[in-house]
């Protein structure tokens, strides 16, 4: 049995955001956003840069006061009950967060000292592959190393919930996998993980629950399975060499039948979603012939989150 010091057995969800509105001047960063994060899950807030992910996270962390709506973390108000909440959460910022001249381990040990029952910092550094650069000043660490120090600082206080903002941005593939495994271990040990990401594969691989945000609004929520199999099993992506003639999506839709959704992505690419199979592929190919357009690529694939996002917003979730 673990002995808990705080009130950790209460039943409040990890995070409840209700009708959150945040503006910077004229720009609406978050617009009537509502979402819930269950305890013990990995929840991904997915969206392109500037979608309002970080702003939402920062209201959960108590950095920003909601202009409208409410935010509760572990049942507490992050602004008014800040002092009760902060020891119970771990925060990984998108960048920075350490003195330029401080050594990596010195910084981690410092944050550990602020907590009552910190993790063993040597073990943590070892797990994050920081053992070799423990004496290196923070400013001389690589971007990936700085990020891992940031993650270590978020975990060292043994929080109930961690907020990680773009945890693997700029990491090489191997490091990303190590980080993912660590986040999965956190979930196994009962820590709730809220992460923002603009990587589809990251959300798909890790998350129990995904909230897709675009322009400050929630556009879809669900498990990766629910989101990718929502009524269709496959997608066809068509890219042509020269811009489509006018009315191309309509004409293709007519050629394919009712059950198929055609989304034009740009001048030269279309996305076909629905119960698509090899015969649909053949019909798309025949349509190209009739329309005298030359396919540069024509691919059939299982619908992934990237396609979901494309279909919902008509835009690529480009990085």
């Amino acid at each position, binding site marked *: 049995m673990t002995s808990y010091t705080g009130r950790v057995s209460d039943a409040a969800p990890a995070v409840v955001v209700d009708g959150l509105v945040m503006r910077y001047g004229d720009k609406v960063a978050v617009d009537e956003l509502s979402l819930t994060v269950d305890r013990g899950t990995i929840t991904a807030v997915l969206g392109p840069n500037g979608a309002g992910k970080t702003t939402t996270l920062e209201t959960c962390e108590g*950095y920003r006061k909601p202009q409208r709506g409410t935010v509760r973390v572990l049942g507490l108000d992050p602004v008014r009950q800040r002092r009760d909440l902060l020891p119970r959460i771990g925060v990984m910022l998108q960048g920075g*967060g350490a*003195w330029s001249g401080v050594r990596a381990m010195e910084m981690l040990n410092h944050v550990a000292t602020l907590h009552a029952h910190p993790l063993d910092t040597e073990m943590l550094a070892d797990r994050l592959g920081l053992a070799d650069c423990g004496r290196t000043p923070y400013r001389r660490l690589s971007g990936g190393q700085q990020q891992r120090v940031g993650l270590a600082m978020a975990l060292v206080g043994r929080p109930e919930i961690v907020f990680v903002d773009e945890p693997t941005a700029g990491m090489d593939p191997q490091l990303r996998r190590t980080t993912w495994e660590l986040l999965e271990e956190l979930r196994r*040990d009962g*820590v709730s993980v809220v992460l923002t990401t603009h990587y589809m594969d990251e959300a798909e691989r890790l998350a129990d629950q995904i909230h897709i945000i675009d322009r400050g609004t929630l556009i879809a929520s669900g498990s990766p399975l629910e989101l990718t199999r929502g009524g269709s099993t496959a997608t066809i992506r068509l890219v042509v060499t020269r811009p489509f003639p006018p009315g191309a999506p309509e004409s293709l839709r007519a050629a394919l039948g009712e059950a198929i959704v055609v989304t034009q992505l740009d001048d030269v690419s279309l996305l076909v979603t629905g119960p698509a199979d090899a015969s649909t592929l053949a019909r798309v190919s025949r349509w190209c012939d009739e329309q005298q357009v030359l396919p540069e690529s024509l691919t059939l694939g299982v619908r992934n989150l990237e396609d979901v996002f494309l279909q919902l917003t008509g835009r690529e979730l480009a990085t």
Partner: protein
Amino acid sequence: MSAGTFAPRPGAAPLHRQVLAQASMEARLMLRNGEQLLLAVVIPVIVLIGAVEGADRIDLDLSGRPIDEFAPGVLALAVMSTAFTSLAIATGFERRYGVIKRLGSSPLPRTGLLAGKVLALLLVEVLQGVVITAVALALGWEPDLSVVGVLLTVIAATAAFASLGLLLAGSLRAEATLAAANLVYLLLMAGGAVVLPSTAYGGFGDVVRWLPSGALGDAMRSGLIDGAVDWTGLVVLTAWAVVGAVLTARTFKWE
């Protein structure tokens, strides 16, 4: 079932431990930085030796021996350099690097952060005092000490300069803070009645004694030349501390 490695066990360390950790961290970082060390120890020692050597050559109107007159002034300069310039520069870059933001989501409360900073300043000032006093004694300094006067002066001056330093750091960008903090330091060192007594400035002395620099310098000299407590200087410093603190509380931006 045994709990996993990361099984939650949250909690804040006792506040005094957090404050001590913060103070020792900040003091270490301050002393590790070459420029800060230059500002804290090297410049004051050079000023002390230079002033004592130079006083014989140029005819300064001093009431006592040069070393007895200058040692308190240089100690005052050291307090000003740490509590104002070093603090402002360090805090400016802490904002820039997101350190203050990061600590803002740690268990350390803002009051604890502030207490840690003040403690770090006092720690560095003690080290500066030891070095400068040793050099001054070697140069034949014979102080007439009022312990109460010196302690109160150091505390009031640290509060005044630290609040002004934070005012600067909390409203300007890091580079602008760096430039402004150094400029103000140089101006006050030259013309702020820190090293030289305000009486040496002629009519202008009536103005500079109301500046935090002049009040600090004069109060330090009272405490180390006359063995007395300069209540006027202490009141002036306290007033600056209150003004600085109020303005800082209103304007300081944490990010």
